């Protein structure tokens, strides 16, 4: 046949290594690794809180109110005599779940609508984007509060409220990416092959949006934690005696001068967790960007 000198290549190429490259780049990023270790530790501590902490988070001991830090109560006690550190550990459970679940929901909704909107264009695009504009234009905290007041304050409604607020920005980012991708020749090649539109959208465009989604996810977790904290602080989020970090700060602020640790310690936990997720997000963004490799 033809002259094949340009393919005098090895018998078989190295099995593709996108994942390995990504992991290597990520592990070289020190801040991202610190963030990851912090988050993993936090998740484990929250999951195994009953075994780690010797105290009951709900036991009221009125004779042990607002104690300072000691070897028994590492961060002291709150106004009902409950151990602050234990409450933070149990609060992490709710705060992490509230961080992750609504993020996943808004990511899923935003991705589907963003791809549909970007690829189909026309009327679909108009309707989806005007809806997203409305969501973004409306003060999100107010919207979430209205949802919580009307539907009642429980965990499921928090998920709903946060997803309602969160999908719009995801949809916008995904739509922008879809618009860029649909002009690519490989999408045109798929069309030229007779590939169906749904297969193009979810077989070709979706895999190319995944890196963006991972980054959006890691950035939206801290956002959701903050939202939940705000809602709980305002009294429409998690209800006592359940503990979430926002609620702990809200309740603790009344004793700011007698026992500052009661409010400040969960505040610091929020701060550190949000930072850790942001570092992970930055690291992932760099690790998943092909131009940062090779």
């Amino acid at each position, binding site marked *: 046949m033809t002259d094949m000198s340009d393919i005098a290549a090895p018998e078989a190429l190295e099995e*593709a290594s996108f994942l390995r490259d990504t992991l290597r780049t990520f592990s070289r990023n020190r801040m991202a690794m610190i963030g990851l270790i912090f988050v993993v530790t936090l998740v484990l501590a929250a999951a195994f809180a009953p075994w780690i902490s010797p105290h009951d988070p709900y036991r009221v001991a009125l004779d042990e109110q607002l104690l300072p830090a000691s070897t028994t109560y590492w961060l002291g006690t709150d106004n009902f005599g409950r151990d602050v550190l234990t409450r933070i550990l149990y609060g992490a459970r709710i705060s992490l779940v509230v961080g992750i679940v609504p993020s996943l929901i808004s990511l899923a909704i935003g991705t589907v609508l963003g791809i549909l909107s970007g690829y189909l264009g026309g009327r679909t695009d108009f309707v989806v984007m005007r809806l997203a504009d409305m969501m973004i234009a409306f003060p999100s905290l107010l919207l979430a509060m209205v949802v919580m007041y009307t539907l009642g304050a429980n965990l499921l409604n928090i998920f709903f409220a946060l997803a309602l607020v969160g999908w719009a920005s995801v949809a916008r980012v995904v739509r922008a990416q879809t618009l860029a991708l649909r002009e690519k020749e490989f999408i*045109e090649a798929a069309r030229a092959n007779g590939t169906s539109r749904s297969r193009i959208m979810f077989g070709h465009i979706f895999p190319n949006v995944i890196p963006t989604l991972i980054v959006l996810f890691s950035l939206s977790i801290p956002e959701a934690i903050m939202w939940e904290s705000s809602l709980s602080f305002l009294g429409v989020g998690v209800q006592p005696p359940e503990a979430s970090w926002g609620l702990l700060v809200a309740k603790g602020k009344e004793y700011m001068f007698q026992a500052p640790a009661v409010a400040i310690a969960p505040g610091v936990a929020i701060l550190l967790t949000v930072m850790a997720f942001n570092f992970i997000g930055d690291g992932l963004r760099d690790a998943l960007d092909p131009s940062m490799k090779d």
Partner: protein
Amino acid sequence: MKDTIPADMPPAEDIVLSTQNLTKHYRVGGGGFGKSARVVRAVDGVTLDIRARETFALVGESGCGKTTLGRIMLRLQEPSSGTINYRGTELTTQGEAEMRALRKKLQIVFQDPYASLNPRMRVEEILAEPLRSHGFGTAADIRDRCAELLEMVGLRKQYLRNYPHQFSGGQRQRIGIARALANKPDFVVCDESVSALDVSIQAQVLNLLMDLQDQLQLTYFFITHDLAVVRQFATRVGVMFLGRLVEVATTEDLFAQPLHPYSMLLMSAVPRPDPRLRGQERPMMQGEIPSPMNLPSGCRFHTRCPFARDICRIEDPALQDRGGRAVACHFPLDG
């Protein structure tokens, strides 16, 4: 190889694809605030017959509408008006599903081998997709066919598990060709398919394309700006200028004697490797290419034509038959 082509050339009536008055107009800028929307005439009335098993080369400078013409012939973009007839089937009136089925026979090899393969798909998935879209067979059939395709374009079947970024440009282009040929197409648009490759690789890929044409009885619509490639591989040539065909002729005729001043100037602009010819007087193109948004009156080439006369500024010449070839000029160069 080229010498044998006229002998077994199919009769002229064996036409694969023909276009009638095909146009593509783009609106640019909104019509709001007193500004009227302007129209770019990317393709402006192209009538053309592509014969079975020929290599029809389309040449012209950047921005003349070559690529757009190739795209609308396959309805990858919608034409603004005109008709496209593929072996008796009118493409412009086909619905979405019918068109998808027809794509089995109408294929394209793209210019940029880096952009035309999905970076997140393995070679196997890339090659399997057109097969699946047209119900090729069982998973095992598809796997065998993928391996067969890869070997057909001169790559090892072990490469099926690899991703595009692991290949060189030439190898990627071979994968792109394998994908286009997966369903045994009839008509293949090659859109600058070798321009992005190294010169040495270009020759290999061109040879591959020509071998495959013989084996699979393909018809090529070869979009290019490289006249050396045209001379070596094309059966017929269409010269395009600002959305119009200005000349259509067999490769031999065109290179022997271009009839349109633009063809002549295009060919004289090719650098000559012989140093003895250096300094020799050659007619040069004058001025800039006119904007396709603001076409000159009359013949659209008159602003740059060294032979333009009064009538050229007033009357737009039509593409007219002239002894087995066609030219759109009031004063063709053969007198």
